[in-house]
């Protein structure tokens, strides 16, 4: 599953044009320069990369950190495998 985490971080860095090294698990999305609009593009790219479907309720609004994003995607990948 670390593979999933790494790929999600790659996508976050690529789609949001942010420094990959700044994407520590406890880093807040807002603090590294990732907005909610950026996350719309990120979720699209993640769906494409993993062949999964992310519904609106899957990514709740209280997701604030990089680690919370990767955990949510890990769960979805496991559920939809």
């Amino acid at each position, binding site marked *: 599953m670390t593979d999933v985490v790494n790929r999600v971080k790659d996508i976050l860095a690529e*789609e949001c044009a942010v420094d990959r090294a700044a994407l520590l698990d406890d880093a807040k999305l807002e603090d590294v320069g990732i907005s909610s609009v950026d996350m*719309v593009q990120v979720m*699209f790219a993640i*769906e494409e990369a993993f062949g999964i479907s992310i519904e609106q309720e899957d990514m709740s609004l209280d997701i604030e950190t990089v680690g919370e994003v990767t955990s949510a995607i890990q769960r979805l990948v496991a559920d939809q495998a």
Partner: protein
Amino acid sequence: MRRVAITGLGCVSSLGHDVEKFLSGTREGLSGVAKTTLPDRDLLTAQNVAEVKDWDPAEYIDKKTLNISDRFSQFALAAAGQALVDAGDVSGERTAVIVGTGVGGAFTIEEGYDRVWRKGQAKVNPFSIPKLMSNGPPSLIGLKYGITGPAFAVSSACSSSNHSIGTAFGMIRRGEIDVAIAGGAEASISFMGLKGWEALRVISPDVCRPFSKDRRGMILGEGAGILLLEDMDRAKARGAKIYAELAGFGMTSDALDMVQPSIDGAARAIRQALNVAGLAPSDIDYVNAHGTGTPANDPTESKAIRAAFGPAADSVLVSSTKAMHGHGLGAAGSLELIATIGAICSGIVPPTINFTEADPECDLDYVPNIARERPISAAISNSFAFGGLNAVLAVKAI
């Protein structure tokens, strides 16, 4: 009424990604026409187009902006960046951004259909809506450069650029704004776009030969042209480089036919532009024609020029640069105004290339095939759109 200076130019075209390449290409009679790079091109009967070549938007646009920018907006952003650097100054609140497009985000729409209907995918790009909307260019330009004055798109098919620039001209003249970033952008040489034009039977199977007897139709182009327009006193006060004065604008509609052009509608627009500019037909040295190379446009436009110019039509130089850069639709008028300004600034009139044989129905001097040296003190640039919408701009040397 205030006077309007043109102080910045920017463009992306099939002849190159900047004004210098565009102007040198049009002077040298180069052609931007080639076989389309679309993957399904074998399903098209006419495959020649004037695409913007080797386009890498990342050279001009940051990744986040790119996520929300259709190809036509990318062209507009790149051209606006050039125009702003060229002009060297722009202020926020008293500046407008007015950019025309005929179609909007054609590729975004097609990609969505392709994903869902052909590839069976469940979702389309999450920014499909902001990408496809026609006001993408003015909004993205305003966002990037912090322009907080009026911003909107104008859509009138092939006249979109001239209507945009003419609207900005009027707003500066009346004192509503001081500066405008104005022009047009288009990127609709998509598969369905080409299929639509193919069905209308106005596309040339080989090249575009405006005003030539053996013309077989138009060649679609794409790109963007953006001009920085400015209150003349403001431009002079800041010591700006002034390319030319935007002196007149005329617009009419035919109310006659959705696709057939009209002599009267076009001639009235030309007369209006001259009247606003305070110019007589004999003052005009050059006409950058709409000149699509279709059987219908070219004789009609020639007769309209003759109707508006009278005896002065015999001495005015007329050329269509579309044979070189393609028909840019919503971007056409802005690219052609830049070509016209280039003629004023260099004293070299761009030619009508691919001209092989005179047509008795087209009896003006079309500067066939080779550019001509002539001092140009004033010129007009014509755009006549489907829907019968005519828009003509007049420019004067400084």
